[in-house]
C-alpha cells in the first residue's frame, strides 16, 4: 500500500485521464473518528441534563406514555430539522445531537411504558424507531448512535423471543455486506460508513452479552425459554457466522483476482472452513476475523483496529459466558489457535515470502 500526498494522487489520476484541470483545494471537512466519538459522548452528556430539565420542569411528560411519545417525536423532529438546516454549523449540530438524544430517551420511555418494559415487542418498536432515525437524520454521529441503538434493540428482541444467537450472526452478515461494498456504494458513503462502524460495535456487544445472565438494557430479562428453540438458534447462529466468514474469504480472494478454482482461493477457503469448525463454540472469533479482514482489504485502519479490539474484548468476556465449561472453551480456543498456526505453516509452504532480491525467506 502506498501513502500518496494529495498532489501525487492528483498527478497520477491526471496521467490516466480520470480527472482534468487544476487540483482542487484540499480542505478536509471531516473530523477524525475520535473527535466524532467525543462530540457524540458530549452530546449525550448534554442530553442527560436536558432530560433532567424535562423531568424537573415538565414532569407531566414523564408521567404519561402518550405525552412521552408525542413530546419525544416532536423533539426528534425538531432535531432532524436542525440537522437539515444547520448547514454544517458546529453549535447547531451539537445542539441537535443533545436535543435528539433527549427526545429519543423520551420516545423510548413512552414505547416501553406502552408495551411493557423489556418486552420483545417493545424492543422491536425501539429498533424500528432508531433505524428510521438512522435513515432520515442527516448527521454522521447521529447515524452512528441510532444505528447502534437499532441493532442492539433488535438483538435484545431476538433474545426475548428465545433466539439470541441469531442476532450476532445477522449483524455480522450486515457488517460483511456493507463493508464489502464500501467502494461500489461510495456515493452513499456518508450514510453507510457510520452505520457500518455502529454495526461492528453492535456485533461486539451482541456476541459479548450472549450467554450472560442479564441483557442489562431497558430492564430486559428475556421472555421465551424453549430449550429446543435455543438449540436451533445456537446452530443457526454458528452456521450463519461461519457462512459469512467463508463468503468474506471467497469474495476478498475474488477481489484480488483469484477465482474459486485457483489454488490460493481454495487454500484460503479450506483454512477458513477449518478455523470456523474449530471455533464453533466461540463464534465471536469468526466475527472478529471477518472485521479484521475487511478492515485490511479496504485499507481502513480504524476498522482493522476495531476488529482486533472486538477479538480482545470477546476473549475477555468469553471466560464468563455460561454456554460451556471452561474445559470445553479451552479446547475450542486451543484447537482454533492450532488451526491458525497450521494455516500459517501452510501459507509459508504454498505462498513463500519473497524478499526484495527475489529470494525466498526461510
Amino acid at each position, binding site marked *: 500500500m502506498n501513502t500518496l500526498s494529495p498532489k501525487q494522487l492528483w498527478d497520477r489520476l491526471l496521467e490516466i485521464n480520470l480527472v482534468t484541470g487544476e487540483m482542487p483545494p484540499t480542505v478536509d471537512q471531516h473530523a477524525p473518528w475520535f473527535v466524532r466519538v467525543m462530540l457524540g459522548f458530549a452530546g449525550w452528556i448534554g*442530553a442527560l441534563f436536558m432530560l433532567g*430539565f424535562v423531568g424537573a*420542569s415538565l414532569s407531566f411528560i414523564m408521567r404519561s406514555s402518550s405525552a412521552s411519545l408525542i413530546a419525544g417525536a416532536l423533539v426528534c423532529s425538531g432535531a432532524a430539522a436542525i440537522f437539515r438546516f444547520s448547514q454544517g454549523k*458546529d453549535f447547531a449540530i*451539537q445542539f441537535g445531537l443533545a436535543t435528539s438524544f433527549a427526545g429519543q430517551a423520551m420516545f423510548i420511555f413512552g414505547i416501553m411504558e406502552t408495551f411493557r418494559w423489556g418486552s420483545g415487542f417493545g424492543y422491536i418498536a425501539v429498533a424500528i424507531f432508531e433505524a428510521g432515525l438512522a435513515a432520515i437524520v442527516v448527521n454522521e454521529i447521529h447515524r452512528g448512535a441510532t444505528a447502534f441503538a437499532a441493532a442492539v434493540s433488535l438483538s435484545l428482541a431476538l433474545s426475548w423471543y428465545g433466539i439470541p444467537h441469531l442476532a450476532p450472526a445477522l449483524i455480522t452478515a450486515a457488517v460483511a455486506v456493507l463493508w464489502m461494498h464500501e467502494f461500489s456504494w461510495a456515493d452513499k458513503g456518508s450514510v453507510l460508513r457510520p452505520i457500518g462502524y455502529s454495526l461492528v460495535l453492535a456485533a461486539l456487544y451482541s456476541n459479548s452479552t450472549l450467554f450472560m445472565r442479564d441483557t442489562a438494557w431497558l430492564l430486559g430479562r428475556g421472555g421465551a425459554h424453549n430449550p429446543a428453540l435455543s438449540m436451533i438458534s445456537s446452530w443457526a447462529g454458528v452456521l450463519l457466522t461461519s457462512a459469512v466468514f467463508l463468503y468474506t474469504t471467497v469474495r476478498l480472494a475474488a477481489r484480488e483476482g483469484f477465482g474459486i478454482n485457483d489454488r490460493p482461493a481454495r487454500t484460503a477457503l479450506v483454512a477458513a472452513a477449518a478455523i470456523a469448525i474449530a471455533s464453533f463454540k466461540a463464534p465471536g472469533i469468526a466475527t472478529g476475523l471477518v472485521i479484521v479482514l475487511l478492515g485490511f482489504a479496504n485499507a481502513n485502519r480504524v476498522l482493522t483496529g476495531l476488529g482486533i479490539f472486538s477479538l480482545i474484548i470477546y476473549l475477555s468476556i468469553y471466560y464468563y459466558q455460561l454456554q460451556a465449561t471452561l474445559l470445553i472453551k479451552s479446547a475450542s*480456543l486451543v484447537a482454533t489457535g492450532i488451526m491458525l*498456526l497450521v494455516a500459517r505453516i501452510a501459507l509459508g509452504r504454498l505462498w513463500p515470502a519473497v524478499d526484495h532480491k527475489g529470494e525466498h525467506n526461510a
Partner: protein
Amino acid sequence: MRTAGGLPGKSDWRGFIDRLLLWAGAVLLAVGVIFFFAYNWSELSRVARLGLAQLLLFIAVAGCGWFGTEQPIGKALLFVSAILTGVLLALFGQTYQTGADTYELFMTWAVLILPWTIVGRLPALWMLLIALVNTAITLYFMIFPGFFGLIFSTEKELWLLFVFNTATLALWELFSRRVEWLRERWAPRLLGFSSGGLITTLAMFAIFDHRHEYVAVTAIAYPLWLGAIYVCYRHRILDLFLLAGGVLSIVIVVASLLAKAMEHIHGGGGLLFIGLIVVGLSALGGMWLKKIGQEGTR
C-alpha cells in the same frame, strides 16, 4: 483506490495474513491454556498440572530462544511465555497454598517478565507489564482498604494509578524520540486515555466531596495535567486523539462544577443551562480540534 495504490497488493496481503495467523494463533493458544488451568480439572493431579504448565513455558521460551526476538515468531513466543509465567505463578500459589495475596501474584508476575520485556522490544509486552502493575495496585487497595484510612482509600488508589500511568506515558513519549519501535501511537494513547480518565474522576471527586484532603492537590494537578497535555500534544507531538480527550475532560469537569454550584437551585432551569453550556463547550472544542486537524494535513 486501486489506482492510487491505497489498497493492499498481493505482497501486502501475504504479510498481513502471515502476521494475523501468527498473532491470533499464539494469543488463542495462550488464552486457551489459561482457561484450561482455571477449570481446575480434577482428573489431572496437581503435580501433573504444574508439570504441564512448566513444560509449556519451557517450549515457549526455548522456541523464542531458537527463533530469536528479532523474528515475529520469536516475539509472539516471548509474549506467550510472559502470559504462561502468570499461569505458572497462579498454579504454584494454588498448589502449595503459599498464602500470597493476589496483588503479590500480579506484582511478582510483572517483576519476573521485566527482563523479557526489556529484551523483547515489543510495545504489546510493555503494555502487558503496565496492565499487570495497574491490576496489582487495584488489588492491593481491595485487600487493604483500611491501610491508609478507610475513607480516603479510593482516592489514594486513583492517585497512585494516575501517577503511575502519567509517569509511564511521559517516559514512553521521552524514549520514543530515540527508540523507533516505541513510536506506535496506540500504546501512549491508551496510557493517556487512562491517565485522563483517572484525573477527571479525581476532579469530580474533589468537586462533589469537597471535605476530603485532596481538594487542593486536585486543584493544582488538574490544570497542570491539562496544560501538559496541551503543550505536549499540540506543540511537541501533534496528537488529536489525546487533545480530544482533554476537551472531553474539560466538558465533564465544567458540567460537574456547574451542577455542584446549582445543586440548591430549585426547578429545571439550571439543568437546561448546564446542558446548553455542555453543548456550547463541546462544539467549541470540536471546532478547535477540526482546525488543528486541517493545519496538520496541509
